[in-house]
């Protein structure tokens, strides 16, 4: 008996050790590039073979906050777009996801394929064709047009994530609520929404990240009138000012890291949201 009871903790602590090793490794993978950015962003005249920059400088940061800097404008545009695209993609995606997750019907596979198709076709091909039409419809060069075109790559992820949630969801709870006298809205608010909330968080996260990092679509449809962080970052990176590029990259990833940290608990394996990808 004694031997059995002592074995359990050992294997448990080994598992825990391995778990921490894996976590440490992942953190290492994620943080190393950021550390390089960090050093670069504060360096001046940092040439090989110096391991660390000899000259520390705030020049890059000064040009980011300078009066002529386009960073504040880009951050604002990126934020408006990401928030708007996230909200509208979830609102559009919910009914579609519910239908795909709960019901089987003729042609469901075709519809699923059509929904995934934007992830298969290269964005530039779609964008070139859309650009002409968007110009004709007056949607070129403004936030509305750029937001609409962001929905193209965003929707597949939102619909797929949410349909996964709905495939594990039992709609009979809604019928119970209705039979107890709850209205449509009250049922959605008190029954449906809490059940699918983790899925909505994950879908929103996808939507936000895809919109936030969109370059070519923003550039084409924005026609230079809508400057976002990726547009600014790409043009800066095409020059050779590594310090400025690094500083701008840090500004670019900071909001994403913040949001990931805040929503991390919904991303854990126990949440019903992730299971849905098993469907694919």
């Amino acid at each position, binding site marked *: 008996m004694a031997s059995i009871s002592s074995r359990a903790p050992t294997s448990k602590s080994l598992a825990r050790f391995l778990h921490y090793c894996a976590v440490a490794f992942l953190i290492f993978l994620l943080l190393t590039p950021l550390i390089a950015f960090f050093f670069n962003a504060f360096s*001046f*005249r940092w*040439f*090989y*073979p110096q391991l660390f920059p000899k*000259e520390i*400088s705030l*020049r890059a940061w000064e*040009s980011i906050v*300078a009066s*002529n800097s*386009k960073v504040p404008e880009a951050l604002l545009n990126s934020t408006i777009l990401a928030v708007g695209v996230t909200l509208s993609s979830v609102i559009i995606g919910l009914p579609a996801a519910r239908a795909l997750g709960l019901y089987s019907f003729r042609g469901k596979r075709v519809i699923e394929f059509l929904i995934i198709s934007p992830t298969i076709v290269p964005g530039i091909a779609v964008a*070139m064709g859309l*650009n*002409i*039409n968007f*110009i*004709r419809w007056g949607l*070129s*060069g403004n936030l509305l047009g750029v937001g609409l075109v962001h929905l193209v790559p965003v929707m597949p992820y939102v619909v797929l994530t949410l349909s996964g949630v709905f495939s594990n969801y039992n709609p009979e709870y809604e019928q119970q609520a209705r039979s107890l006298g709850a209205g449509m809205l009250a049922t959605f608010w008190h029954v449906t929404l809490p059940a699918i909330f983790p899925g909505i968080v994950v879908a929103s996260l996808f939507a936000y990240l895809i919109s936030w990092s969109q370059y070519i679509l923003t*550039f*084409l449809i924005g*026609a*230079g*009138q809508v*400057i976002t962080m990726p*547009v*600014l970052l*790409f*043009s*800066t*990176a*095409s*020059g*050779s*000012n*590594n*310090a*400025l590029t690094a500083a701008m990259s840090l500004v670019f990833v900071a909001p994403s890291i913040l949001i990931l940290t805040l929503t991390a608990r919904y991303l854990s394996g126990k949440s019903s949201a992730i299971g849905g990808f098993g469907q694919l």
Partner: protein
Amino acid sequence: MFRYRIMATFLLCLVLMPLAAVAADDMEGPPGFDNWEAVLEEARGQTLNWHMWGGSDAWNSFVDIVYGGELMENYGVTLNRVPLADTVDAVNQVLSEEEAGVAHDEGSVDLIWINGENFKTLKQAGLLYGPWTLNVPNSKYLDWETGGFLLDFGEPIDYSEQPWAAGAFQWIYDTARMDAEDLPRSYAELGEWIGANPGRFTYVAPGPGAFQGTRIVKQLMYELCGGPEPFAAFDQSVWDECSPKAWEVLNAWEANLWREGATYPATANELNELFANGEVDFSLTLTGTGAARGIASGQLPETAKAYLFDANMISGFSYLAIPINSANKAAALVMGNLLVRPDMQAAQLDTNSLGTGATPVVDFSTLSEEEAQAFADIAAAIVGAADPAEFAALVPNTASEYHTLTEQNWERCVLRDEC
């Protein structure tokens, strides 16, 4: 005379041929405008969407602060600088708008920093506004007869493209690593140097967007095949005879290049970085002030310096063009005029202030004593520029067909060695 030495060699002022100065009032207006006053009036309150390559922090700040400030203060024009990763993006936008049937006063691109292929694309598509460059008042400061900028990569600019900065091909070396007398001064000497210093040289791979590399190959052809004259107009037999010689030389270098020529830097910026990090001993620039701006911005070591071979170094210009569908042509014209105003040209040159080191295109013989002195003072304080006497090696660019052929064939004949 000594103080004028740097500027005196910037090509344009070699042959002094003062133009009859045209007073602003009796000058004819640009297309669509009665006179210059009408342009100024219409420009007031407009927003100028200037699409330009955004990879240079120096350029971005200069344009925003100096030009943006001047436009706002004196002309009531708001500047919206649109940063591009590649100029071809702006050209594609104009082409797309035209295809979509956007009216010719409703386009989103007002002004493009442009040259070479991109200019040719817009010109051939008939999407350039103009001719206008002779109809802005400050055009009197340019030497349109002998300035050398009437051809852009061999393509006539037809007064629809405004030159505003002169460029010259220069090598960059590090005075801390090498003595001036040890520098190769021709491609033949460079070949010997490469053989003696394996792994210490590479060049930018010729190709679209990397015209510095194309220029290196074309300069080599000049040296191998009798200078720039045979290349002034296109002749297939010149190409057929000369290009194999060039490929032979370049392939002979290959074994002793950086990474044994298995790969080449794709852009001048990449080469610059290899040079700054000490991986190779030569970089290059087209900015007339050589290493000055790179030193000021910390991208080059303080001991970097530009120099030229003894002959066959290609010169060229930066231009501005206005698309035919620009919604704010008046504002674009005001900017075009501003760019060649002598004090702005001087500010551009001054790397010790906000300037980018772009060398002026104004003809110094049209300037007052004072204005000319301003250039001389700035030039005297610049560090890292090539020795002025070396600019005598400058020659004009080839006809654009050679440019295209070089880009098309280099990869096949040198990189893949299949010729």
